[in-house]
Every structure is written in structure tokens, then in C-alpha cells.
């Protein structure tokens, strides 16, 4: 934190922090990185809009069914009791973000962030309806002609339709999308489904059509703290100042060095293509989402000028200062180790997951009951939760004391998929052996499937000896 400088300013001077945001008209660009981004957009949005419709084993393949409180992930069904897996998954996602950020900078921002991906799609529509950068600027400056009205209307209609479809698909991951679709077709959608579709559609339209780079600049917390994961070996997009300066225009064929110039011809194409409107030549800025558009623009210019590519390039701070770059370094090892541990725990616990939970609660009303003076009986309340997506019948067994027997239930306990059954159980032992408190174990085993079995500990109480 720096000490604020005292400076007298006229009261009318507006604070630069609130300086007007200029509308940015990103210039269209082609090249290696824009091809990569286009591929990422098509892949990620294809998955988003497509997977929602995929069926698996008679249900939606990926469905976080909130109304029914169960998550379908292909053949796996998770219940609220499986919250641990979601937590682990979120931890793994965060650690992967740290790992890849430390390794290669803001890969997430440039290629995978929904903000980038949907903005790209909205910009494609804008380019298709309103034309290239210079035409768009001219159109915005010009008067409202019939053509301008037409172009703007078509753009808005496409944007609204896309946003609505996005909202619909999004809600389709939380409520079965096919019933949502038929609800939409017959105009009989539920109030809350409509509300969420509208809200998410509005958010898509606002973020990707209207706010765009301002989300990254003003709203994204990650943009602010990602520098904590950066070091001098992290891949960044950087302008090679030593090679580029002094910048300046020149005739084609001029040998830069003999004219006293660097390789930068100051064409400002790198600024024009930037979706966040920064000048990469000012150095690393937190507004830079590392999309690589400026690299593509500059490479193209360097090709035309007959200079080597890479005046703006992916590099590291160490490489820029002619030092060697280390990919393997303590930070990377720590992130990688944490990531491996978390992934290992998740994989192991998923592989060994038993889709059955047994809760045993001792009857609170009576400690014990004497049966015909020769046996002592304890009562328990069992909660049997079948976490599988098939119905099962379970047999209860007890152990831990000589002569311990299950009085009831003797019949197998049948539980429908994803349901909880509450069962009253009675366990008895010979009176002679049952004085005091004993530790016992209850075992519940599925009769119709192998490997589904759980143990639960409880207590058996007899008369004080």
C-alpha cells in the first residue's frame, strides 16, 4: 500500500477512477492464437449446448436434479450425502487453476472462461450483422438510417435469442431439459424455471453483449489475485521492448538498425485487436486476459515487414532478461503435489464408494427390556439410505457379544433407489452375559448385489452388574 499523495485539485475535476469507459471495437484478426480460441469456443459451447441433451441409461447424462435432490453424472448418482465429492471437485478445480496459471499465465481467461467464450460468440454475431471494426465505428457515429436500424435490430434479435437459449440450456442442467423443453413448447413452464431462464439469459446478454471486457476489468476477482500465482518463470504475453524500441513508422525495406529504429513500426494494430483495449507495449497489465490477439496481429505485420516474428510473444520475465526459464520450480511442485493428492483422494473415494448408508440410533425411551427373565432386549431405530439408482434388499446382522441375536427385522429390508427407510430393530442377548454396556456392531449387506455392505457401531445396554 502506498501513502496517498496530497494534491490540490479543482473540485470540478472528475476523478480518473471513474473516467468514462470508452466503447471498445475489437478489430477482427486471424492467426495461430485466434484459431486456437475459435476452436476452444466451438468445443466448449458445443459441449455446453449439446451435453444437456445427452441421454444415459434412461436418464439425462449430466443432470444436477435440484427438484429431486440428486446429481446424475453418467452412471454415477450422487445425493446430498455425497457432498464431499463436490467439495473435492471444487478444490481440484481451484488447484488446477493455480497450477496452470503459474505455468502458463492466464490460459483460463484467454480460452476457457465463460466470459471470454460467450463474448467471442456475441462479437461474431456483431461482426456478421454490423461488419468489420471500421464499419461498426462508422455505423455507430452515423445517423439512424433504415440500414442502421435493420442491422442493429437483427443483431439484437440474434443476441436475445442466443441469450434465451443459453438460459434455457443452463436451467436444463438443473431440471430435466426434455420436460423443460415440452413445458416451453406448450407454454406451461413453472414460475421458477421461467424466472431462472430469464435471469440467466439476462446475465448472458448483459455480460457478453454489453459489459464484455468490463467484467474482466472491474468485476472479476481472479484478475486481481492471479498475480499471486505469477513468478518470473510464468508464461506471459509480452512486447520485446529491447527489440522494438525506438518505435516508429518507416518505408518498407528500410533496415531498422541503420535508420536508428527498433522493429516496432507503431502501426497500433496490437491495440486495435485487443478485446480489453490495452496497449501491450506498456508492459504486463492486469487487464490483459492473455488471448494472444496482439501476437497474431504483430506476427502478421512482422511477416509483411520481413522481420522475424515474436516482437510480441509468449515469453517469461526471465527469458526477456536473457536468463533461463525453469518450468520445474518449488511453486510448481507444490501445486502439482496438492493437485495429485486431491485427485487421488477423489478417485479412491469414488472407486470405493458404497452406495449405502446406515444410521443407528438407540431407542431413547427405555435402556433395555427383560424378556421372560432370561433375555435382555434393546431397541434401535435404523435409517437405511439406498444411494444406488437401483432398488435393493438388505439383510441385517449383529455381532460383538456372546449370544447376541437379532429379534427383528428378520425379513430383508427393501429400499427403493435414492430413498431412506426407517426400520425399528430389536436385538437380544442372554441375561447372564449382558450386564453393563457393550460395544456391538451392526452389518447391513445387500442380498441382490455383491460388494454393498456397511458396518455401524452401537451400544448394547444391560442391567448394571
Amino acid at each position: 500500500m502506498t501513502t496517498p499523495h496530497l494534491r490540490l485539485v479543482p473540485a470540478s475535476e472528475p476523478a480518473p477512477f471513474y473516467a468514462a469507459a470508452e466503447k471498445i471495437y475489437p478489430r477482427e484478426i486471424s492467426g495461430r492464437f485466434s484459431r486456437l480460441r475459435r476452436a476452444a469456443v466451438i468445443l466448449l459451447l458445443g459441449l455446453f449446448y449439446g451435453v444437456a441433451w445427452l441421454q444415459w441409461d434412461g436418464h439425462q447424462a449430466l443432470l444436477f436434479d435440484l427438484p429431486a435432490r440428486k446429481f446424475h453424472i453418467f452412471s454415477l448418482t450422487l445425493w446430498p450425502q455425497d457432498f464431499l465429492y463436490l467439495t473435492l471437485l471444487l478444490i481440484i478445480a481451484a488447484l488446477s487453476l493455480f497450477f496452470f496459471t503459474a505455468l502458463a499465465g492466464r490460459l483460463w481467461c484467454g480460452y476457457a472462461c465463460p466470459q471470454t467464450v460467450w463474448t467471442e460468440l456475441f462479437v461474431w454475431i456483431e461482426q456478421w450483422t454490423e461488419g468489420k471494426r471500421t464499419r461498426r465505428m462508422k455505423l455507430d457515429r452515423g445517423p439512424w438510417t433504415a440500414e442502421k436500424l435493420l442491422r442493429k435490430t437483427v443483431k439484437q434479435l440474434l443476441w436475445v435469442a442466443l441469450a434465451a437459449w443459453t438460459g434455457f440450456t443452463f436451467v436444463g442442467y438443473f431440471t430435466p431439459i426434455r420436460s423443460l423443453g415440452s413445458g416451453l413448447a406448450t407454454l406451461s413452464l413453472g414460475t421458477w424455471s421461467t424466472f431462472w431462464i430469464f435471469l440467466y439469459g439476462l446475465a448472458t446478454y448483459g455480460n457478453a453483449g454489453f459489459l464484455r471486457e468490463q467484467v474482466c476489468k472491474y468485476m472479476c476477482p481472479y484478475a486481481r489475485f492471479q498475480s499471486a500465482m505469477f513468478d518470473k518463470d510464468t508464461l506471459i504475453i509480452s512486447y520485446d521492448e529491447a527489440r522494438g524500441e525506438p518505435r516508429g513508422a518507416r518505408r518498407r525495406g528500410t533496415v531498422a538498425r541503420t535508420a536508428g529504429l527498433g522493429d516496432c513500426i507503431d502501426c497500433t494494430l496490437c491495440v486495435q485487436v485487443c478485446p480489453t483495449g490495452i496497449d501491450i507495449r506498456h508492459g504486463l497489465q492486469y487487464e490483459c486476459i492473455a488471448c494472444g490477439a496482439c501476437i497474431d496481429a504483430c506476427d502478421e505485420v512482422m511477416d509483411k515487414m520481413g522481420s522475424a516474428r515474436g516482437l510480441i510473444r509468449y515469453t517469461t520475465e526471465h527469458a526477456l532478461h536473457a536468463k533461463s526459464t525453469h518450468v520445474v520450480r518449488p511453486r510448481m511442485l507444490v501445486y502439482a503435489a496438492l493437485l495429485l493428492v486431491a485427485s487421488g483422494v477423489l478417485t479412491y473415494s469414488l472407486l470405493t464408494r458404497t452406495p449405502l448408508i446406515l444410521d443407528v440410533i438407540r431407542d431413547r425411551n427405555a435402556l433395555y427390556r427383560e424378556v421372560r427373565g432370561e433375555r435382555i432386549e434393546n431397541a434401535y431405530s435404523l435409517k437405511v439410505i439406498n444411494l444406488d439408482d437401483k432398488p435393493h434388499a438388505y439383510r441385517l446382522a449383529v455381532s460383538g457379544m456372546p449370544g447376541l441375536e437379532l429379534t427383528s427385522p428378520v425379513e430383508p429390508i427393501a429400499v427403493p433407489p435414492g430413498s431412506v427407510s426407517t426400520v425399528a430393530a430389536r436385538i437380544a442377548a442372554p441375561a447372564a452375559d449382558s450386564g453393563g454396556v457393550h460395544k456391538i456392531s451392526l452389518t447391513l449387506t445387500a442380498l441382490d448385489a455383491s460388494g454393498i455392505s456397511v458396518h455401524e457401531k452401537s451400544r448394547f445396554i444391560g442391567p448394571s452388574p
Partner: protein
Amino acid sequence: MSSSAPQPLDPERRRWAVDVGLVLWPSFLASCAASLLFFAAVDPALLRDAGPRLFADLDREAGYALGFLFFWAVGALASALSVYLIRTERSRPRAAGSRPP
């Protein structure tokens, strides 16, 4: 809207827009996290048993939505107080012409 000629917002209106964003956005994120944690542990259908008069006709979808909006409102209140306290702080006049540290 972006359909008119680029007309920069005047600073006062922009400051207001920034403040609204500062109130609504972090509270939205916090509400997402709070809803996730809360509803992982609590089935909204059970709220009916907790307050029969208040939640009589509550189904799960309504429970989730109202819970989310409730957390958002509480978060927004906290953010609004923070923004208000920062804006009215005497030692940091808002037209000082310097970026916040």
C-alpha cells in the same frame, strides 16, 4: 445501450453504476456459495416443517429460489454498508484524483 453512438457516461452517473455493481456483484457470488453450502445440508422441503405458516405452500424449487434471493439480499445489505462507509469516509475524499491504493 450499445446501439447508440458511443456516449461516455458522465462521471457522477458512472460512479453510481460502479456502486450498484459493487453492491450486487460480490453479494451475488457470496449468495451462490452460501446457497450451495446451505442447500447441500438442508432440504428446502423441510422448511415447510420448520415454519408451517410462513412456508406452507413452498415446493423445493421455490425454496431454492427464495433461499438464493435471501442470501443475495443479506449479502447486498453488507456490501451496501461497506460501499457507504468507504464513500463517506472523510480521509478519502472521492474527488482526490488518485486511484485507491
